[in-house]
């Protein structure tokens, strides 16, 4: 298998509540993979186990052929696994420019000696700042990059979520409902950016809006009650009667 990201028999229970049941997810390099499922299906919990925020009860997680199940969350980021959050998780009192510069400095920290990292001003690293600015520009945040994050409009904050994840230069990007809370029709900006990301970045997308999912994904996994119901191409998913049952509630 040459999957870039993989779970093997992943299992997670909170007390008696099983939220991940034997999930075997596999992301091919360059994938545009969507993870869908009803509220409470366990999508976010799955992401949290992939990124190391939560420890699975059993099973393993593999990134680019190496097992990362026991590797700390920050180390997984350095290895190229990055994410956005369903609920804005930003640095309210930092400006977007500082926040993204911070992420790039963290990524590049091994290239600087400790003296420079500790005692040289951030502004001396103009290459990093320029890179941060370029990334913010790419995400239509150039106009707002010098004001504190908490003053930004909600939609802009969603874009900053993406900018921070991209600043780590991920191999695999996990997007937890990037358009959550953005009014219908205003998520175009976000998805335009998503569609321009290079194929070197493999993407796992959680999203409820089916139109967005079908436009974006080349593969879809449906998760129900923590269990993988089915994985397939968009057309296979549309045709699948079990999926229709879950989504349209056509019982019995």
């Amino acid at each position, binding site marked *: 298998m040459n999957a870039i990201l993989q779970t093997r028999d992943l299992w997670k229970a909170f007390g008696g509540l099983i939220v991940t049941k034997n999930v075997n997810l596999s992301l091919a390099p360059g994938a545009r993979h969507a993870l869908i499922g009803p509220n409470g299906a366990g999508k976010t919990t799955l992401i949290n186990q992939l*990124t190391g*925020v939560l420890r699975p009860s059993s099973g393993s997680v593999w990134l680019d052929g190496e097992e990362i199940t026991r590797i*700390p*969350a*920050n*180390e997984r*980021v*350095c290895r190229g696994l*990055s*994410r956005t*959050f369903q609920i804005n*998780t*930003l*640095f*309210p*009192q*930092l400006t977007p*420019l*500082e*926040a993204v*510069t*911070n*992420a790039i*400095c*963290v*990524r590049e*920290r091994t290239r*600087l000696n400790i003296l420079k*990292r*500790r*005692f*040289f*001003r*951030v*502004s001396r*690293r*103009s290459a990093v*700042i*320029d890179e*941060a*600015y370029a990334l913010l520009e790419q995400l239509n945040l150039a106009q707002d*990059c*010098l004001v504190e994050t908490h003053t930004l409009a909600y939609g802009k904050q969603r874009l900053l979520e993406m900018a*921070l*994840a991209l*600043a*780590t230069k991920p191999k695999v990007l996990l997007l937890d409902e990037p358009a959550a809370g953005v009014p219908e029709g205003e998520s175009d900006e976000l998805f335009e950016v998503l569609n321009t990301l290079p194929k070197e970045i493999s993407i796992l997308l959680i999203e409820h809006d089916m139109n967005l999912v079908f436009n974006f994904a080349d593969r879809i996994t449906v998760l129900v009650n923590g269990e993988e119901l089915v994985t397939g191409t968009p057309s296979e998913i549309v045709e699948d009667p079990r999926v229709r049952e879950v989504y349209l509630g056509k019982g019995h």
Partner: protein
Amino acid sequence: MSDNLAKASRHVSFLRGRERWKSAEIAFWLTLVGVYFVFPSSLVFASQILITGLFALSLDMILGYAGIVTLGHAAFFGIGAYTAGLMAAHGWHDPFLGLLVAGVTAGIAGYLCSFLLSKGGDLTRLMITLGIGLLLYEVVNSATKYTGGVDGLQGVEIGKLFGVFGFDLYGKTAYIYVLIISFLLFVFTRSMMNSPYGLALRSIRENQTRALAIGIPISACLTNIYSIAAVIAGIAGALLTQTTQFVGIDVLSFQRSADLLLILIIGGTATMYGGFVGAVVFLLAQNWLSNLNPQYWQFFLGILLIVMTLYLRGGILGGFSRLVNLFRHWRNKEHS
């Protein structure tokens, strides 16, 4: 060179502007130099204010910048004070050696304590730091044979600086000594807080979940800054010992930790100068009001705290910078 400057983009100069030494900062340090000439009879008190300011700066590093709350920071101040005192009482009279050993000792203590703090929320941290502070106080209190207990450590003899400048009764040498050490440590701290490392610390304070998600090793960073803050607190404690030639057990008291927290909050957190400004206001007001009537001080402090929390978020410096912004805004309007 000027070509380079001209080319520096708006966003780079924005960050550069924030990190530059402002004229108000230079004025601040020059004023402290001026105190030496203007108030020659109050230099002992002035030294104590400076030492408290330096101590508050060390709290600012962990509370203001890294967001770690603590009620036991006096532990490290006390460790530094006793280390310097015990050394001087047992034949090592050189002040610089005293500072160095005190700083290292406090730093090691801080490093060890930091592992208790790297996990857990604010409440856990408050309780643990409080516990460490109380514990240490009691240990020093019981070890009467070595520390003098409640009577304090006697026989602290400090040698001359560079073998030349002795500590005089008026505190002239002491003030210059404290001022220079404080300034050096301030420059050290300032450059650290403006570095990529300082930015990472601030981001941990702002949001740990996100800081972790961009790859910051949070526990390592916190352990690290906690140890450095302990070093500076220890040096501040040693300065107090050396300039007063005595160690009282109150260097370890809960009151000291609590007052320090008030000083920093009154002055303003994460401003670099909040600790110094807070120390000036707090100690001057305390001195003046307790001279009028000891009860006035507690009363005034109570009112100040309530007003501060309700109306002056960000302390004196926070309020001041808002005033400056208002003034700029108003002037811009006038011009256009």
